[in-house]
């Protein structure tokens, strides 16, 4: 089974580095960035299977980033993460092509299961 390549995007640097480290301990090739702008740049530089994207960030927010990702990389799977759990954000995110919309906090093992499902093209949980 090929190594899962994940880009984790959140403006909380400490959250990014911790989640990336935990994913790596589980054999996942994880990369972390702290802004939507940085995420778009990184996606052009290296291949990923899934992008995990925080909805609310300074600058480009998650919904704007997913819109741009889906224009340039329509097959790249995107999971949206939110601390708000606003229904309208979830609806918009899914309409823009997100595989799923998760409310923080998310158990890491659950997140990994969803990442695998997203790559396999399976159904949402």
């Amino acid at each position: 089974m090929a190594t899962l390549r994940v880009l984790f995007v959140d403006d909380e640097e400490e959250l990014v580095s911790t989640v990336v480290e935990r994913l790596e301990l589980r054999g996942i090739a994880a990369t972390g960035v702290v802004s939507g702008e940085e995420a778009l740049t990184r996606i052009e530089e290296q291949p990923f299977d899934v992008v995990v994207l925080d909805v609310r960030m300074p600058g480009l927010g998650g919904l704007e980033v997913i819109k741009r990702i889906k224009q340039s990389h329509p097959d790249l799977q995107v999971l949206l993460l939110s601390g708000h759990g606003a229904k309208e954000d979830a609806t918009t995110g899914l309409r823009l092509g997100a595989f799923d919309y998760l409310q923080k906090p998310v158990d890491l093992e659950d997140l990994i299961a969803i990442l695998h499902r997203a790559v396999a093209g399976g159904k949402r949980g």
Partner: protein
Amino acid sequence: MAETLSENHICEQEVLYFSRVLSGQCHEMANALNIARELCGLHEDIFPRAREGHADAVEKLGSLAHRMQTQIDRCHAIVRTLGHFAHSADGTRLGCDVREIVERALFFAARQVRLRQAELQAVVPAGDVQLVECNPFLLQQAIHAGTELLLEGIGQSRRITVGLTPETAGAVVTLASADPFVCNDAAPALLAEITATVQAAGGELRETPESGGGLKFFIPYCRRGLTSADSELGIPKGTGGGCDVS
């Protein structure tokens, strides 16, 4: 009738400001707790290797404790500041520490500034406590609205400076952008709001960004003698009433 409407309007704005602060700080606290949760998870991940005596894992556990402490401290700062903020809604007081009020307003404004990719620089002098007579809640609200006004018209420097200067009869709170202010559709309404709020707080709006120098609020010093009950929150100085501005 007009006066009643105006009071109602100010009241609505107070509730709006209170809820904005509360929701913003709830998100900040949730962020800190999410990080703490992941750090606990990482601790669990690493612990078995540390127990086996792997030096790198043992060292990592030490740094994890420090990182968790940072997030706990972050939550404590939020809770402490929110507690003082909630009490600041009790009305006009004699003997308010204007420095604490400004620092608290900036603590909350830091989130809105960060989300707008701007920078907030505070120039609040240490030294003698400056006791003013004002409604601390409304002064915080005015500072928040002033920050919002400057953010709406901010230029490329994306920097806002907030200062506090003692004058003979009172303290002056200054909010300024590093760039010339660009007037926009939202500015007139915000400016009217700020003027009314500063007045209701017991102060006076002395300068607006339209005149090129940022915003200046004048808050008069206490003119009457104080009893301990007049002092803000009734808390003796040096018991942690202030807060960190980040």
